[in-house]
């Protein structure tokens, strides 16, 4: 399995505030990799930079050997990376179906019809509500929509930013099961989570981010049983 994404010495700032201070990591095809860390550690910043929404100060981001630096976000989507953003950010005024159509914006109508069928199969709840406007749905349903929408572009690398945020425990489990399933079907996943125990339990590998630097790395199981990680992120 080759490397699908490699990040080298990435630095990102918001004005004078340095959010990401030279991090390096890579993801192999077929893996679930998670970035864990506290609020403000630079997790979302990293994802947004890979997606092209933020411009890094310096460093390298390569997707299948091609540099992503300076490439517009919409081009990055067509290259095969989708980001399911923090806080879901579904288009609340648009219907469920229209939201999915937007997810497949870079694809042809025929492809979208096919992908939509698959998304509806995976998320039957979305099919029941396809005509409903997204803003009227519950948080869990909106998260499913956000994920379905991200899948519409048929990404090779799916980045999920805090998919469990604000959801009831039973839904959190469901969301993680789906992430695992998507991965088993061949999508590489980069997962950012504050719910570290959940994330590490499904991840092949993890990186711990602290105020913009990577302080630890290992397999999901290793980190799950690491004393420092347990103390800092898993409540002892």
């Amino acid at each position, binding site marked *: 399995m080759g490397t699908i994404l490699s990040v080298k010495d990435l630095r990102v700032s918001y004005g004078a505030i340095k959010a990401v201070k030279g991090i390096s990591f890579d993801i192999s095809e077929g893996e679930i990799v998670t970035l864990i860390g506290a609020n403000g550690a630079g997790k979302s910043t990293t994802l947004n930079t890979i997606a092209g929404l933020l411009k890094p100060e310096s460093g390298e981001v390569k997707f299948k050997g091609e540099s992503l630096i300076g490439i517009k976000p*919409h081009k990055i989507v067509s290259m095969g990376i989708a980001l399911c953003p923090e806080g879901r950010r579904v288009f*609340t005024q648009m219907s469920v179906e229209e939201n999915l159509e937007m997810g497949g914006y870079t694809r042809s109508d025929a492809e979208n019809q096919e992908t939509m069928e698959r998304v509806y199969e995976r998320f039957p709840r979305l099919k029941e509500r396809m005509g409903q406007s997204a803003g009227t749905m519950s948080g869990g349903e909106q998260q499913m929509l956000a994920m379905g929408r991200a899948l519409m572009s048929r990404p090779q690398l799916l980045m999920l930013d805090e998919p469990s945020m604000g959801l009831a425990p039973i839904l959190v489990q469901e969301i993680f099961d789906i992430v695992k399933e998507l991965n088993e079907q061949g999508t590489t996943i980069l997962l950012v989570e504050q719910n570290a125990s959940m994330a590490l339990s499904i991840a092949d590998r993890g990186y711990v981010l602290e105020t913009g630097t990577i302080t630890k790395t290992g397999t999901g199981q290793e980190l799950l049983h690491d004393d420092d990680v347990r103390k800092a992120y898993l409540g002892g």
Partner: protein
Amino acid sequence: MTFLTQVLNGLQLGSIYALVALGYTMVYGIILLLNFAHGDIIMVGAYISWIVMAQLGMSPVLAIILSVVGCTVLGVLIDKVAYAPLRNAPRLSVLITAIGVSYFLENGAQLVFGADAKVVPTYFNLPNPQVGGATFNGVAILTVVVTAVSTIILTLLVQKTKFGKAMRAVSEDMGAARLMGINVNNTISFTFAVGSALAGIGAVLYSMAYTQATPTMGIMLGTKAFVAAVLGGIGSIPGAVIGGLLVGFAEVFVSAMGFSVWRDAVVFLLLIIVLIVKPTGILGRTMNEKV
């Protein structure tokens, strides 16, 4: 019978306001900019018709096409040159720029064409149909029909087409739209193009009715259309149409009752009342501040 004639007059004036208001509302919906240069685009459209027909002696059909195309190109150009570089700047900077563009167009027109009014020749001799004892103005009927058709096409475009849906997506959440693979800059340009094309149509219909082009004609027309857009709820397409018709009717009926001096005052009074009762306008949604 004069009542029906006045209704038609109100519809005619209201339709023109509605066409212009649509441009305001679409641009506001997508980049939250009150494009104060929008009214002046209509002025340019009127001058294009004047040049093509009166100066070059070419056909009215060509004049209409060139006016609409000219306004469309101008609208996109203004966005690219003046607003696009300020996409990440504070909203106030863009607003001031819009006022600057407006002055630029008005004074530019005065420099090129002079301050005196140019007479835009009659495009077509339309029949004025008589029903019962009342005569209905052909241009007025045409104006209402063209506006209705334009509004229907615009609504279909925004609701049903991929590009229209992208416009709605960008207008709701620009960042999320980018993540969908939508080219946000192209979508904004497209919005300016559509809004300015409607202004071009408005320019032709306005010139048919009032047959004059002056450098400052866009100011009051633009202001009234802006009032119409706010009245209807800025950002809302049906709101712009309702607002436009309301302003048109208000003006025509105040004039018909013999208070034409008070015409403009009544329009602004209407705005004040609506803003007190429903600050987001008639069809406006409650604005949620994005965090």
